């Protein structure tokens, strides 16, 4: 029996000492508290969100050249049976045709917001470990800016036509990562929260170094790599540009004009314009110096995907099979024949079988830094916002004409009235933001009952407003 006793004691000791031996951690996962133990973790969590936004369900395709551009009738591939955008079911909800896209925007968008909220919470509690000068403000400012950027797009997709129906419950606005259900807030409250948050980001990013350069070879090693190529991040001017967009959506033209002007007039610390319009896009498809914010795509897959998706084949979606439609978009009949945004080899590849945009065809650019990018905010939008908001029709004409002349199109006669102004702006959005997604939001903001290529006889809010996912209806707080 004594032997048994010794054995029992021995085994108990084994139990006690094995706790460390049991501590096995999976290699691909890391606990939250371990991640945010040092500065690198904060950088990684922020970088993760940018990479998430580059997924094809979000800005990597559907919210730029994909779904939103299909709805805005940028393409004509009517021989492809699955690409029948002229069918009404693209605009009536619920529809099995659009269900997956519309659900993904919501699910993935809120997932990115959850990541940002958790990052922001950790900056508050553990942010002291961010030691490099200025990083804390940059990371926090970008996180707030990005969150507003995503919220604003969710509001523009799922919210009402603001000018007609501003008090309609739109989307939940969450600032905490927890499991409590958040209510659908009226669009007015959401837009105010977005604007407040953007202002906070603006303050935090006041000292953004705004390092932007497009070296034709090599890399400038003197710049901190975490703060280089700022156009790929939610920088100071991206926040200001977003403010201009948000104020305009809200109908606050004074503030929208103020921010648009601030961006247009922005100067580099060394002097010279911070952003400048481009007049030759042959080797500069996404207009380098106009980029205020662009998402950087995965260099391993992006070029191949673009080559596949934009080739003239029977199964592709993002093409124009009838050249006349291209000419219509670019007003070739009146004044568009020299528009660099359309010309063969510049903005488009045109052949007898059809045409497709070269915006994303980025293998012959003057700087490798420009490759694998999808623009999200560009300078011309600031010109158009200012042109729409200014009370001076003369100035409005000049602003539009500035962009037009840079693109190789004649300047315009001074607008005689607001209708002429808005007509001109509509056409410019259509040409400038071809396959960038912003055109759809332009139509929705102004509640256009029809537009070029629109298959619906009378577009109403119901056609412009995406339905909430079934799961949100079932599990969220929608009343």
């Amino acid at each position, binding site marked *: 029996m004594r032997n048994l006793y010794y054995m029992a004691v021995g085994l108990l000791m084994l139990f006690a000492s094995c706790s460390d031996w049991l501590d*096995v951690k999976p290699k691909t*996962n890391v606990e*939250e508290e371990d*991640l945010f133990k040092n500065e690198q973790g904060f950088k990684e*969590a922020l970088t993760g969100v940018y990479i998430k936004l580059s997924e094809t369900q979000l800005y990597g395709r559907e919210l730029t050249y994909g779904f939103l551009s299909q709805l805005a009738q940028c393409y004509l591939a009517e021989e492809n049976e699955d690409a029948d955008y002229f069918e009404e079911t693209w605009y009536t909800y619920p*529809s099995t045709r659009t269900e997956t896209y519309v659900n993904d925007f919501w699910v993935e968008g809120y997932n990115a917001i959850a990541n940002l909220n958790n990052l922001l919470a950790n900056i508050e509690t553990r942010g002291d470990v961010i030691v490099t000068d200025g990083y804390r403000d940059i990371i926090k400012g970008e996180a707030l800016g990005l969150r507003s950027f995503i919220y604003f797009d969710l509001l523009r997709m799922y919210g009402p036509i603001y000018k007609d129906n501003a008090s309609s419950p739109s989307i939940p606005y969450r600032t905490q990562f927890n499991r409590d259900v958040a209510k659908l807030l009226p669009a007015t409250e959401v837009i105010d929260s977005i604007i407040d948050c953007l202002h906070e980001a603006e303050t935090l990013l006041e000292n953004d170094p705004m390092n932007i350069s497009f070296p034709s070879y090599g890399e400038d090693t003197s710049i901190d790599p975490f703060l280089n190529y*700022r156009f790929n991040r939610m920088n100071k001017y991206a926040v200001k540009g977003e403010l201009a967009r948000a104020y305009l959506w809200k109908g606050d033209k004074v503030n929208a004009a103020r921010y648009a002007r601030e961006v247009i007039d922005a100067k580099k610390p060394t002097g010279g314009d911070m952003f400048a319009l481009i007049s030759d896009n042959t080797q500069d498809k996404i207009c380098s110096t106009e980029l205020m914010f662009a998402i950087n795509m995965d260099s391993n897959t992006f070029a191949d995907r673009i080559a596949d998706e934009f080739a003239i084949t029977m199964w592709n979606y993002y093409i124009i099979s009838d050249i006349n439609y291209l000419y219509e978009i670019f007003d070739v009949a009146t004044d568009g024949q020299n528009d660099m945004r359309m010309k063969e080899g510049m903005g488009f590849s045109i052949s007898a079988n059809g045409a497709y945009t070269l915006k994303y065809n980025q293998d012959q650019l003057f700087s490798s830094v420009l490759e694998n990018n999808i623009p999200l905010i560009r300078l011309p939008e600031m010109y158009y916002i200012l042109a729409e908001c200014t009370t001076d029709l003369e100035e409005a004409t000049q602003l539009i004409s500035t962009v037009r002349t840079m693109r190789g199109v004649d300047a315009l006669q001074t607008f005689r009235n607001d209708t002429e102004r808005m007509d001109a702006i509509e056409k410019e959005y259509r040409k400038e933001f071809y396959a960038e997604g912003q055109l759809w939001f332009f139509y929705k903001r102004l509640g256009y009952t029809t537009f070029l290529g629109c298959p619906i006889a009378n577009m109403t809010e119901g056609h412009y407003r995406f339905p909430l996912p*079934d799961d949100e209806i*079932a599990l969220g707080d929608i009343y």
Partner: protein
Amino acid sequence: MVDEQGDPIPGVSVVSNDQSLKAVTRADGTFSITLPEGKSVKSFTFSFIGMATKTVTWDGKPLSITLAEDAQTMDEVVVTGIFERKKEGFTGSANRMTGDEIRKLSSGNILNAITMLDPGFRMGDNMLSGSNPSSVPDFTMRGQSSMGDYSTDETVIMRGDIDTRPNQPLFVLDGIIDVGVTKIMDLDPAQIESVTLLKDAAAMAIYGSQASNGVVVVETKAPEAGRLRVTYNGNYKVEYPDLTDYHLLNAAEKLELERRAGYYDESGTIVNVENRYDIYRRKLLEVERGVDTYWLSQPLETVFAHRHGINLEGGTNELRYKIYAGLNQAPGIMKGTGVYGKSVSIDIRYRYKGLLISNIAYVDYTTSDRTSPYGTFDQYAKLNPYYRIRDEHGQIQQYLEKAVYDDSGFNSAGMTVGNPMYNTLYNSIDRNVAFEVRDAFRAEYSPMENLRLAMDLTVTKTTSDTDIFKSANHTDFIEVTDLEERGSYQWTNATTLDWDLAFTASYNKVWQNRHVLATYFRYDIKETKDHSAGAYATGFPNDNMDEVFLGAKVQENVGDENTTRSFGGVATLSYTYDQKYAADINGRLDASSEFGSENRYAPFWSAGLRWNLDKESWIQRLGFVDELVLRGTYGVTGEQGFTPYQALQMYNYTNTMRIYQSSDVVGTLLYGMGNPELKWQTTDSWNIGLDFTLFNNRLSGRFEYYNKLTKNTVLDYSLAPSIGFSTIKDNVGNISNKGYEFTLRYMPYYNVAQQMNLSFVVNGSHNKNTIEKISNALRARNEEQMKEDPDNPNKLSRPLPRYEEGYSQSMIWAVRSLGIDPITGREVFLTRDGERTSEWNAADQVPVGDTEPDLQGTMSLNFNWKGLSVNVAAQYKFGGQYYNKTLVDKVENADLRYNVDHRAYTDRWQNVGDLAVFKAVTQDVNGSQTKASTRFLMDQNELVLNTINIQYRFEQRYTPWIKRLGLSSASVGLYMEDLFHWSTIRQERGIEYPMSRQISMSLNLTF
């Protein structure tokens, strides 16, 4: 006191003829009894478990006794895989089946036989994988213990894939715990000694949390001493396809269906109209020329499969050995598929006095050709019968149809269809090669009387390579122009290393021959390491260059790693009084790396009672009761139900491991929403059993009732997507699984003189799953979900909650349908309020059926006459419902450009006034998907004739002529398997791989 091998037997009970004197033998087998003065003893009776009781007269001199093993009493031991327990003292639910019973029901996979022998052991549906020898079926015991959605589609898991199914029982093979299910499937049935199923809390308490779905303990035959004995086993099987469930359209019908669907309607430009007309005329001409290809038979063949095993055994009483070598060639009915295995095992046992050392080593080498070079079967089921296989030169065509383009290069009619048979002209591989070495070492020692100490060490090392190669000419790459993308190679190498070290002590004590006390203690420590890595490369212009490193471009690196470590101790105390009453108690403490640092230890316990009524004199007086046992167990066991990273908030790098320009680090994202309040789920389980044998073995049976109540069930609790994640692990309530299982055996005819008997066996089971209680959070949300829309009070816009008290998880949800409107051809639904509507709305779904059958089980018949035995077994199932998803996919949601089920032609609505079962034909595949509706809910009643087996055993005493052939015994058997399948549901079975029927012969020769 020795056994037949001359080894001493400790613990034998010795009783004098008048019952007054008793003793037990010591470790060396000796015993002594002091005889009181003046007392005379005529004889002594010696008894021991597993040995025939012997009575010897005593004339006053020392006795030397040899006890013989008793085949009958060997049944009386319960093999738990860890300890051997006396059946009389075992209170748990253990169903033991012998190798012979198994061999009578299956010629190959022994698990098929187990599903027929035990009503609680079920094999999953093989609707998709059919009879593919490389697919790994899903097995479950006594229902699902966790909450979740089990209505999802069947997943096909092939050899070499990672098995992700959560409800598999634990498999134990010759003491090696947790072997893969394929190792059991590949076992040569001739090697099986016995299989024991453990189902209740007692099994959980012994094996810990990994046994929450039950345990299957498989023992192979131990070597027999004697001169060298050679045994040969063979099985020769003919397997042929069973396509009786396929009813596809013929060429003329198919083309007519396409016309009705409007593929050839005049539309678009003049060129378009012309092209559409042309292509229709061309197809029509082919039909009129008599082209009507039966594509289904093209990739299939009748195959001959064979298995051989040679066994050498012998040795002395001290040292016994067994060497087994086996070969299994099992091609599948799709050309180029199959499983080819070779295995060797060496079993050596050494015994000297109180010491026993044994070592069993296995080596398995298995090659599986997983998919056919012809492709999957569904590709052939889709092909239109008006296509020809070969062109006018007799060559296999690459394209069966080419789309027609208009002037600007756009598709105006038809589609491009590759010929899957074209791929057979070029090299392709889908192969898994697995190599496994297992070793089980055991040393046992009895240092003192009644005490046994043992050490077990088992080590398993597996390497498995999976290679999937498609040449550049494969039809998958028809539309790919880039040479670097044509041809692909996916290579994965997976290795595992498991080891398990266990120490066992057992102690038995008998007092006054009435009180038997047995205790067991076991401590074990183990580690499992899995690692896999591989690459995906493309660009193989020359199809002889089938090596992954010859690819022009590496697309992706893949891999995974996982290590788990655990240790635990289990203690068992069991007491039996007078062989009538028994009680036992098991306790276990587990610690595992999977439990997370907050919750390192998990306790389990169970207790049981047993009453051997047949030992009671008042029962014995009845005269017709041979055996009557009442037993019950109760236990509380725990299961984590989640991995630690689900409780903690974790970040993950998997999808964000790339460089983002303007950042100098890689990205990371939240893996999920952590729930620090998560609790373990625990299960209280009751098991009550009754075993009886009556009227001289004429009638016997077994009845078990169980009630498992799982508390704090862990579930993926759905969240509103705006929270950022769609689920969180949470404790959502209590679930019960109540059910019964029975087996009845009736032997109407029994003639000892003729050695003839006939018996019938029926077994069955029913399980009822109920959600007993839901958490407050879930209740609050259900109420929230039922709130009415204030703007629209009559419209119930949200679907009903699915987790409500009283609901079952096997319920089927669908919108009630009134059928197809004869006027419009559209479906008419009922809303939740009972109003008619033509719109399908998720909120109108209500529970409409339950997949759990009222009863399912097996009926079998067994006839023996001398060496002849005949067995017939059939499985039945009735009272459940089934949502016929195959029918939805193959008829209404079918893409009409391809071949479809006959009903899509005959039973669909066409004209106003048609009373049709299916909606109108439309080519709009994406816009009008049929969603869950009661039109596709069907009652499922099924009868499957699984096995007919006829065997004849030649023995020297009946057939002396076999001696002249040098044989000591021989047997020949004939099997017919999966002969007949009758069901109330008409659907295609075997989608990716067809079903088969099998006829085989087995031969067993002992020299």
